[in-house]
């Protein structure tokens, strides 16, 4: 059996005593080396889950265990070493005066030797295509450039768990694909657990497992193919399915039944070809 790296056990959370519960009795596990996507409508509780994972917030009820340790005041420092996170708005996390200082910052905090730091700054900035901006002040970058740098900063500390909270939302589609393949290479190489919070359906398709949040509760937890099979229900809770799923649906209505629910264009074309050769 795969090792659990994160466990949420009956977690409930609200931002204040007078405020409504934003997470209700949430339980799930994240395994070592897996890619988990979390999706859900705006305000469903995704970012709150992310902040609970690295001890920026603490639950009022239930417990959270990361790599065997319960998240609490004492453990957060060692937990934050292992859990790297990129926030929804990268402006909230720039600390350095230049791009390169910013990437260095997290490593300094972890006592990484200077030689190694320089090497990693170069590696990670090149990996996200921002090498030529290493001396630029972060607030002078465009939205997508900021997101690239934020991702480089977190890759540089080589965490065990990487949480990307809509970290590529401002990138152009090509850039998004490139960055996600960089991240997934790093994941394979360093045996990382990757948690992506996203509204991008293409990104969801690539994950191994998906958790769907609705109104502070887990609505479903399954592989992408199973999730997207629930088209109408997903739409009811503010979500949608990818283009191929919609096309397969329309084909179905037009009398063409693809046997296996396609997840991408290649699978759909294969399905069509099989039908075509049979006729």
């Amino acid at each position, binding site marked *: 059996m795969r090792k659990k790296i994160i466990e949420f056990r009956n977690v409930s959370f609200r*931002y204040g005593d007078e405020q409504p519960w934003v997470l209700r009795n949430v339980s799930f596990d994240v395994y070592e080396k897996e890619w988990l996507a979390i999706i*859900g*409508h*705006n*305000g469903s509780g995704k*970012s709150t889950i992310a902040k609970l994972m690295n001890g920026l917030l603490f639950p009022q009820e239930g417990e959270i265990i990361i790599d065997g340790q319960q998240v609490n005041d004492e453990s957060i420092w060692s937990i934050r070493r292992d859990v790297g996170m990129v926030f*929804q*708005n990268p*402006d909230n996390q720039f600390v350095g005066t230049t791009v390169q200082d910013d990437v260095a910052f997290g490593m300094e905090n972890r006592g990484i030797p200077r030689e190694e730091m320089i090497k990693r700054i170069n590696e990670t900035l090149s990996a996200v295509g921002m090498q030529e901006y290493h001396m630029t002040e972060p607030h*002078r*970058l*465009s*939205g*997508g*450039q900021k997101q*690239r740098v934020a991702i480089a900063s977190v890759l540089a500390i080589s965490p065990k768990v990487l949480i990307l909270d*809509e970290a590529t*939302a*401002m*990138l*152009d*589609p*090509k*850039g998004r694909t490139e960055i996600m393949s960089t991240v997934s290479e790093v994941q394979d190489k360093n045996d990382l657990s990757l948690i992506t919070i996203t*509204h991008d*359906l293409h990104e969801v398709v690539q994950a191994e497992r998906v958790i769907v949040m609705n109104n502070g509760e887990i609505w479903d937890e399954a592989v992408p193919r199973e999730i997207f099979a629930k088209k109408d229900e997903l*739409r009811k809770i*503010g*979500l*949608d399915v990818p*283009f*191929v799923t*919609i*096309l397969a649906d*329309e*084909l179905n*209505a*037009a*009398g*063409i039944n693809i046997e296996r629910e396609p997840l991408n*264009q*290649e699978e*759909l*074309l294969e399905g*069509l*070809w099989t*039908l*075509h050769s049979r*006729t």
Partner: protein
Amino acid sequence: MDITFKNVTYIYQRNTPFAHKAIEDLSFHIPSGSFVAIIGHTGSGKSTLIQHLNGMVIPSEGEVTVGDFHLTQGKKPESMKELRSKVGVVFQYPEHQLFEETVGKDIAFGPENFGVPEDEIKRRIQEIIPAVGLPEELLERSPFDLSGGQMRRVAIAGVLAVKPDVLVLDEPTAGLDPRGQKDIMDMFYNLHKEQGLTTVLVTHSMEDAVKYADHVIIMNKGTKYMEGKPEEVFIQKDALNKVQLDVPEMVQFLNLFEAKFGKPIPFERQSIKEIAQSIQGIVKGAAPHE
């Protein structure tokens, strides 16, 4: 309002060692009433371009004209406030646009500033809140205690409350859930049609550009790379690939389909249903008996 860029160059931190040319010699014309999509890789100058439209930045060289307002170096329009009441901009980062104590006050700020009477503001808020998909109970909350997608909806509501003639949207659906993306874009489109707005949309979604825009401008490294109708621009795969972009997913699929089945289905901004019917014709068409 007509919008014209004439040989516009914009340089950040001009006359310093850090001078950075974000836009170079850019010219185009947007007739009043159009819906234009601006597309380009990150850093291609899109946000810099649109900041000219309400005078947030003044061209370093060249001239920008929005309706009767002219913006050139050393000659800002006297009535900047009037320009800003006519050109509403939803910025890329909604957080930067929010600053009041409560969501309600935040949305009211713009119209108050432009002298809209209080009861009229109340009426507008009642209308806008459901249109942007915000639950009413959020009106009393601090805008900083909201989720990312909720903040964006508040920022959009604040701009709509001013009732501008020109609507400028910088990646307005980033951070919205899929239904929110569709609902908000449909809402912008309806407003555009009903009120005869001029709309400038910066987007990474080729799908949205195809669906809503009547004209597309493709930016690359601070210059205009291509311009035209969506159905003309979005079939040019090689040209788009050269500048970090791609054709819409539907066009990608039609290309792959043609490669596999040897039969083209031309892209005419048709619906997915229509595409399914064309495919049905080809896949089942060869059936010897049916």
